[in-house]
């Protein structure tokens, strides 16, 4: 479980995150949603330690990441896996080498075992047979799947995904969402996904934190979103005609039942 307590982040005079309090549960897909520029990415960067918060606590199962020493931070980082918006695969390495990289760096397993473990992870994301291709030779969706395989190869306790569906078609986005959701439940990982993809919100959002103008405005499950009364959340979620109509239909049905 990851908990954020009174988290603030400022850049010079500009307050980007203001008193964020949120809990991200173990074995669940936790989503951070919000408009572009709302502070989602800054929040994610604070959580994973790429930025230092101005004030507040980030608790990883009770361990405050902000106040940990350098060595403890490095050890905690080895419990994390991250999938970046642009996959961030190493261009100079092929698919298998990319997935093996964390094992090469941090594991004492023999070479054959490392290869087997990497191939198992690639099989899990349906990429068997692509081991010797380079990132430039595969599609965006495949790159994301390689990134997932690399993120899970060390069996992390915490998985972070920064807009994993960015630049992907809706069908591939669903495949990526299902993979992330499946891995989270099977391996009992605390997963945090930074997204503004409504399909992801409705499909896999078991615990959603809505960020607006640097504040955590709402937290709940995708099943609660239709009944949410927060004005900013409603404006954000139901901004498209289809979702607005779905909301009206839902409200009508609810009225009829009531």
């Amino acid at each position: 479980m990851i908990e954020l307590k009174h988290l603030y982040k400022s850049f010079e005079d500009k307050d980007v995150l203001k008193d964020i309090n949120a809990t991200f549960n173990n074995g669940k897909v936790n989503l951070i949603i919000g408009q572009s520029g709302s502070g989602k990415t800054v929040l994610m960067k604070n959580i994973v330690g790429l930025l230092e918060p101005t004030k507040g606590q980030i608790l990883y199962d009770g361990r405050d990441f902000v106040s940990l020493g350098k060595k403890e931070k490095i050890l905690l980082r080895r419990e994390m896996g991250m999938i970046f918006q642009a996959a961030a695969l190493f261009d100079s390495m092929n698919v298998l080498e990319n997935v093996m990289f964390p094992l090469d760096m941090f594991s004492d397993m023999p070479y054959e075992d490392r290869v087997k473990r990497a191939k198992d992870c690639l099989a899990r994301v349906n990429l068997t047979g692509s081991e010797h291709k380079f990132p430039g030779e595969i599609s965006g969706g495949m790159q994301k799947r390689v990134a997932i395989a690399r993120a899970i190869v060390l069996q992390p306790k915490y998985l972070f995904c920064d807009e994993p569906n960015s630049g992907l078609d809706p069908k591939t986005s669903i495949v990526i969402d299902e993979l992330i959701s499946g891995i989270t439940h099977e391996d009992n990982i605390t997963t945090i996904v930074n997204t503004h993809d409504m399909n992801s919100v409705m499909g896999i959002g078991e615990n959603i934190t809505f960020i607006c103008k640097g504040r955590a405005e709402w937290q709940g499950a995708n099943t609660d979103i239709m009944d949410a009364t927060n004005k900013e959340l409603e404006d954000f979620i139901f901004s498209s005609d289809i979702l607005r109509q779905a909301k009206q239909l839902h409200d009508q049905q609810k009225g009829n039942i009531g």
Partner: protein
Amino acid sequence: MITVKSSLTALGQYVQLMGRVCSRPDRMRMFLKQYVTEMYQLGYNSIPIVLVISFFIGAVICLQIKLNIQSPWMPRMVVGYTTREIMLLEFSSSIMCLILAGKVGSNIASEIGTMRITQQIDALDIMGVNSANYLILPKITGLMTIMPILVTFSVMAGILGAYATSLMGYTSVAELDEGFRYQFNQWFFWCGMIKAVVYAFIITSVSSYKGYTVEGGSVEVGKSSTDAVVHSSILVLFSDIFLTSILT
């Protein structure tokens, strides 16, 4: 005032980065793998350009001395002697490193800069890898290892270039031979080697710093690549004066 402040900030960032670079690698087998790769990419791949440039410059220096400087009052061996000293003391160490600052420096800055803007460096940091050490240390040690070999090749190619002028009929092998052997001071060779190692450090560390600290997109990567070449060239020239004054 702003320039002084930004220069001091950059210097501080450079020193901090070098502090992170000069630490024990997370995994020695990965470091050695990268070290060999960098020696190949930065050094081995530079051999053709070093040989071609040195060969022709050696030939041209020899011709210039023969046609424009040598007179009946000078001994015949002066052509070979001067060519050898120029190649050994300045061209093969300093000027060749200046040329390599263009090739290797822009390569390093653009490679690391692209890794920065595509979040590959962030990925390393999140994994708990010391990204500065993993990416930069093999480049610095790799080029520092191979640069003296490149300088040796450059001297040899320059001398071969000088011999080639005898085929054109401007000089004779005998007079060049005499000049090349005349009062050879072995220390001059080692001066070139010391300079090469220092320049290799300057080129790789400055270019890596420029690439590692890129913020923005492809335009900034291009700018960092240019800055890397300009700054490392200036530092090579500056340290040339300093090293020449203390070594010879």
